[in-house]
């Protein structure tokens, strides 16, 4: 069943248009990877989906129209965006960062249970609850950012370059957790990633974005098997 439907999405900054009519669909509970070179518009696509920048076209999530709403409204609609650079609230504590993720929800036992759940995914966060979030390492901040996003019980999770600046081992661990989260919570995930290997490893389907247009779509296996992709993004020939 399709969950996220994007049609003819155009977006940019000022006069500079970055996306030229992007269309894609993601099934409920699926992971969709967006690959592509620097400057292709991957981050812009996520920013348009979460309302951080204005976009034209249509975006629907589970049938509800999301187009043109500001990010605070979309957050209430179940869109959680882990932005490039992680968006940590540096001077606030780890726990406050997590609780802010649940800002749109009511307080209650369910929310406390979710905190525990996130400590289960990221045990390291539990040991640092009272610490200023700015003092965490890059990998821990990325975990915190994903934990924060999960606290909103999102229907759509947008991950922008989760591997950026992280050691390979940490990145692999992070992707394993994203996969576990997706499997357990049936959260639909759109992940933008430079590391095509890892992204294709957890995604069901993938799209390749080049200069603001989708040039190739398919299942993760198909994309992996594509010679062009292999050369450009995976670093080997099939």
């Amino acid at each position, binding site marked *: 069943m399709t969950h996220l439907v994007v049609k003819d999405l155009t977006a940019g900054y000022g006069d500079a248009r970055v996306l030229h009519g992007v269309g894609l669909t993601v099934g409920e509970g699926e992971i969709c990877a967006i690959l592509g070179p620097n400057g292709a518009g991957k981050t812009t696509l996520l920013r348009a989906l979460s309302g951080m920048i204005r976009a034209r076209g249509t975006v629907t999530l589970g049938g509800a129209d999301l187009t043109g709403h*500001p990010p605070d409204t979309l957050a209430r609609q179940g869109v959680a965006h882990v*932005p490039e650079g992680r968006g940590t*609230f540096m001077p*606030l504590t780890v726990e406050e960062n997590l609780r*802010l993720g649940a800002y749109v929800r009511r307080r209650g036992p369910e929310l406390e249970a979710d905190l525990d759940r996130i400590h289960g995914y990221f045990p390291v966060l539990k040991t640092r609850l009272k610490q200023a979030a700015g003092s965490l390492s*890059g990998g821990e*901040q990325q975990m915190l950012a994903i934990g924060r996003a999960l606290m909103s019980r999102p229907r759509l999770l947008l991950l922008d370059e989760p591997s950026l600046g992280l050691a390979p081992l940490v990145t692999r661990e992070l992707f394993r957790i994203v996969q576990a989260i997706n499997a357990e919570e049936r959260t639909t995930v759109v992940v933008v990633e430079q590391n095509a290997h890892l992204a294709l490893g957890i995604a069901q389907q993938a799209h390749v974005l080049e200069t603001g247009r989708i040039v190739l779509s398919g299942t993760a296996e198909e994309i992996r098997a594509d010679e062009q992709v292999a050369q450009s993004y995976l670093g080997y020939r099939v």
Partner: protein
Amino acid sequence: MAGFLQQLVQGLGAGAVYASLALALVLIYQFTGIVNFAQGELAMFSTYIAWQLTAAGLPFWPALVLTLAVSFAGGMLIERVIIRPVEGAPELTLVIVTVGLFIFVNAAAGWIWTFLIKDFPNPFPAGALEAGGISIGLSTLGVLAVVGVVMGLLYLLFRHTKIGLGMRAVAANPESARLVGIRVGWTLALGWGLASTVGAVSGVLVAPLLFLEPNMMGGVLIYAFAAATLGGFDSPVGAVVGGLIVGVAETLAGAYVGFIGSDLKVGVPLVIILGVLLLRPQGLFGRAVVERA
């Protein structure tokens, strides 16, 4: 020794007033990055409202509560109408806007209430507490108590409520705050409302010591700037401590440094501002940014 303690207590009383105006400055700076030069004038205008209400026959404390409520709404309105359109503009633009607001509010008060000085009722009894050879005016104690209560309430708001957490999130990272669903625009307006309320407290406390007139907050604003600079413009606690230190420094300098006396006292905050900017620009409590890449 008793004389010294006497001066110290007096300094703390004055400092409490500077602290509350400094706190108002810091609140707005934290949320919007704006140094609000009109903060003192807004406080003065609020004080006139309180005066008008008491002149109309309302007892002091109900008049104060009503004044604070009006100040809160007024602060939010100013943010929505005057500050919102220039949000994100260069610093110089923002400074000019708040200086313009300063002139406008000052002139409006003069137009409505004239520039003739008015007596403002002192809400505290006239007596004094005698202890160990020093006497502490009840009004000084009252000022300290009121400022203490205001600080306590703000602390509770920021540390123990969801709205307060949201406000701190907006101050820390507005873009992320928007992404977790916080209505950032309204939070900024709330910050202005709070700041105007806290500023109004300082105006109402200082008015009985000075006279009520449209220019009464000019001097206090300079002390508040010194206090905020000393404590760190991003630290509410720093603003309070800074205010108290500035009040004490000013009083002691006036009493013990011969050539300063009461005429040159206003030079003290300027010396403090200059000294802090040279030696520790982030202020005593300013955030030493803890960030790892």
